[in-house]
């Protein structure tokens, strides 16, 4: 029996101790008419050898195309040590550190993680993580409502560069508590906030700006932050952790700094894996810590006055406060945070700077090469980090399909988001100059044959 250790003798003895004749008798409190005979759609069992073969066949179907898509998930080199250690059974198969004395490993990892992520974002405190970047925006918005109690509007203003899926997720999770999400006006030449036509009044509870934006651009974070504060709103920054090696930390935005920073933690050593598991990070100013959702680890002392770590501020959480909790969230993404902490330790600040600069440089190469082709141009003026939006003079989808046939994923079709035929590209440190040139050549080929076909 897979994973069940009982011998027949064990089972017999155990039934005897219980005082029943069969295992079936143990289910005698369940009404008979509810019991089922046979599952119809679960196949027969496979051995480890058989399932391994099947999964390898399936993996082969997906292949390993060269990927230039970003848009919220990024292909970075992950040092081998990261998952070698993170999948050690002592991390992998432990649970939430309720018994602190027997969970000091997990607790110290989270404390070190909290330290690193607050250093990167320039804010005071961090939780032990949330599910992902998108759901973190929902939690940050709800948190802003709790902090900014004076404001009753429930209006959250989103800069034009906030990932459209983040908006959908925030609306799905926080919408039923009366929050509404509205977009600030966009400057069509830069893709950024149009500061000349910002709305007046309306009592917004929070302003959200994503830096770098969904389309890769860099916005005036200082001006936005000061505007938010001048209008009585909290400032929420959505940031990419790799970019923080170079870009101004949210805690230093504007005169007072952003109040809450969140983002997708995936770039810090987490495989792209079709979308998860990732982790959402969240940091804030110290004065807001009691409104923060999720687990938080604190350093304290034990009976002998030695330092140790424990979950703290649990009075905010669902298992204590029930219907009055800050959120229904239970788990953080412990294993992913463990991996990210090891990743940040291995890279250090200098390593992360090198990754960030290489991503920027590679993306510039790719964008320059592609926009030199006929019918391709940069969609927005202005600085970028490691993604660039390109405008095309023809529909994007058929081109991407043709390139996918050559095992090149040349970017994401963002036509519906920007309202014009456009493509979002990203080249991380994993791409060589040769890879980038191959992509440009293939793109040029595909464009040429598309021109021939339409001629």
């Amino acid at each position, binding site marked *: 029996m897979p994973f069940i250790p009982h011998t027949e003798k064990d089972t017999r003895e155990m039934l005897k101790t219980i005082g029943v004749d069969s295992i079936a008798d143990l289910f005698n409190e369940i009404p008979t008419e509810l019991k089922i005979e046979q599952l119809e759609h679960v196949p027969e069992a496979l051995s*480890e050898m058989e399932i391994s073969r099947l999964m390898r066949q399936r993996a082969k179907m997906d292949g390993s195309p060269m990927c230039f898509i970003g848009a919220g998930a990024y292909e970075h080199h992950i040092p081998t040590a990261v998952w070698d250690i993170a999948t050690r059974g002592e991390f992998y198969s432990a649970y939430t550190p309720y018994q602190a004395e*027997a969970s000091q490993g997990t607790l110290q990892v989270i404390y070190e993680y909290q330290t690193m992520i607050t250093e990167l974002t320039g804010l005071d405190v961090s939780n032990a993580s949330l599910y992902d970047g998108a759901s973190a925006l929902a939690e940050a918005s709800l948190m802003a409502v709790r902090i900014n109690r004076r404001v009753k509007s429930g209006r959250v203003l989103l800069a034009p560069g906030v990932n459209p899926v983040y908006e959908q997720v925030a609306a799905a999770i926080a919408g039923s508590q009366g929050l509404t999400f509205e977009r600030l006006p966009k400057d069509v030449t830069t893709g950024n906030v149009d500061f000349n036509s910002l709305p007046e009044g309306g009592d917004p509870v929070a302003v959200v700006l994503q830096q770098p934006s969904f389309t890769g651009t860099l916005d005036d974070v200082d001006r936005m932050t000061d505007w938010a504060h001048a209008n009585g709103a909290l400032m929420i920054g959505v940031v990419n952790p790799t970019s923080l090696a170079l870009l*101004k930390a949210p805690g230093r935005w504007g005169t007072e700094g952003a109040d809450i920073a969140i983002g997708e933690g995936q770039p810090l050593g987490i495989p792209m894996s079709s979308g998860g598991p990732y982790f959402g990070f969240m940091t804030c100013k110290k004065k807001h810590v009691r409104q923060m959702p999720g687990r938080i680890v604190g350093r304290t002392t034990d009976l002998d006055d030695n330092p140790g770590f424990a979950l703290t501020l649990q009075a905010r959480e669902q298992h204590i406060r029930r219907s009055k909790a800050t959120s229904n969230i239970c788990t953080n993404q412990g294993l992913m945070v463990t991996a990210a902490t090891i990743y940040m330790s291995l*890279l250090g600040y200098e390593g992360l700077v090198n*990754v960030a600069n290489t991503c920027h440089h590679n993306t510039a190469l790719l964008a320059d090469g592609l926009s030199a082709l006929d019918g391709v141009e940069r969609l927005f003026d202005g600085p970028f980090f490691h993604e660039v939006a390109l405008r095309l003079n023809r529909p994007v989808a058929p081109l991407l399909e043709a390139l996918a046939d050559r095992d090149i994923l040349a970017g994401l079709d963002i036509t519906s988001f920007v309202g014009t035929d456009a493509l979002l590209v990203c080249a991380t440190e994993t791409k060589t100059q040769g890879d980038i040139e191959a992509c440009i050549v293939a793109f040029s080929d595909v464009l040429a044959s598309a021109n021939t076909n339409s001629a």
Partner: protein
Amino acid sequence: MNSRMSSKLIFEKSRSGRRAFAQAPVDAEASKIPSNLMRNDKPRLPEASELQTVRHFTRLSQMNFSIDTQFYPLGSCTMKYNPRACNALALLPEFAGRHPLGPVSHGQGFLTCMFELQEMLKDVTGMKGVSLTPMAGAQGELAGVAMIKAYHEARGDHERTEIICPDAAHGTNPATAMMCGCQVVEVPTGAEGDIDFDALKSAVGPKTAGIMLTNPSTLGVFERRIKEVADLVHDAGGLLYYDGANLNAILGKVRPGDMDFDVIHMNLHKTFSTPHGGGGPGSGAVGVNDRLLPFMPIPVIGSKQVDGETVYGWLSEDDLPQSIGRLSGFMGNAGVLFRAYVYMRMLGRDGMERVSEYATLNANYLSSRLKEAGFELAFPTRRASHEFIVTLKREARSLNLTAMDLAKALLDKNYHAPTTYFPLLVPECLLIEPTETESKETLDNFVTAMIEIATAAKEGAEFKDAPYTMPVRRLDDVKAARQLDLAYRPE
């Protein structure tokens, strides 16, 4: 586990200029970003060699209890063995490296697995549709209650905003109801652990949106009048939500769909053995019956026939216009779903039923042995499901041995403690869930340890200062909350 292991932080081991040089590009041209957008401070990240980092985190791992190293009978958490193959196969390079927005032409292997997982989960729960997107149990709950609300609203039934929860429910149930903008109505539990049916009768009415139930309940017993409960709530116009926390107890035996539940969430990290990972990632797939199909969170995996071949793809906004929407940036915790898929395929059809059978056998054996050893069961007249509750209210009074003391004493005997002080309505309780993957010897040894602690207490031993053999002694929680130290900031 060594006691008094070093708890020096990685930052304290750092030396300026030291790095794991193999792990980042060596030279990188400085970027061309305007200086007003750049940071001019230097974040303090560790400066350590690769070996130092490996050694540091390996040492930290050794300061944990885990399933792979200890018996971990944490009630309500289903701490069963996490097969290694599940992890290795989920991390095959093509799967781990697949971009979430990659085309379906380069994802048929992945999508086939996910589609089949949906089908298997439908089968074991008796539901009509499954969405894999919720990223944890609590998010599955949120999806479930949001669907119940959307259902009523689509029918113009705007007054239905009350969610009924038993007093024994997980804290996430009432917290979720509030997040969905509902009010919580709490219903008490009867003496034998079933819901108080008369109280339920007076709680249901024209404002009832639904009821959230765990069955077997958090008290470790099966809700025997489930059909009557379902009829009562349905007749009042409400829907039934099944909290899948305890699905391990009935897997392959009884299905929530057959008990007339309208919507359920599954904790794949419990029943389907994906890793708990020190507190996540979880995965909280939801299942629905016909009524709630149009409201499922997106994306869902669909299939169609193209030139005689089955092709898998995403169902999204256009396919499910009434959906409650998206809950994650992409499609949920795909890597966790892979692990659950592999586990289910390895168990196969017959293996499902064996899970609940041996989980129940182990729980009943352990409860019988503990009862025989003099421990008091909270519901002695009832059959244990896959878990059961011991109450120490007698020992707390006569021996000054509380549930907390016993939990800490167990750590010194190299056992992880059961869940303590939950459910809240049983005083000094231990919620014990052995799971099916533990052997009889392990259970026998655990009973011996429990007896030894009780005997020592009777002979006057106190465990107020336990544990003694862990890397730290009991920690000062009050200080942790009052003098907040949440990040390392050297002077």
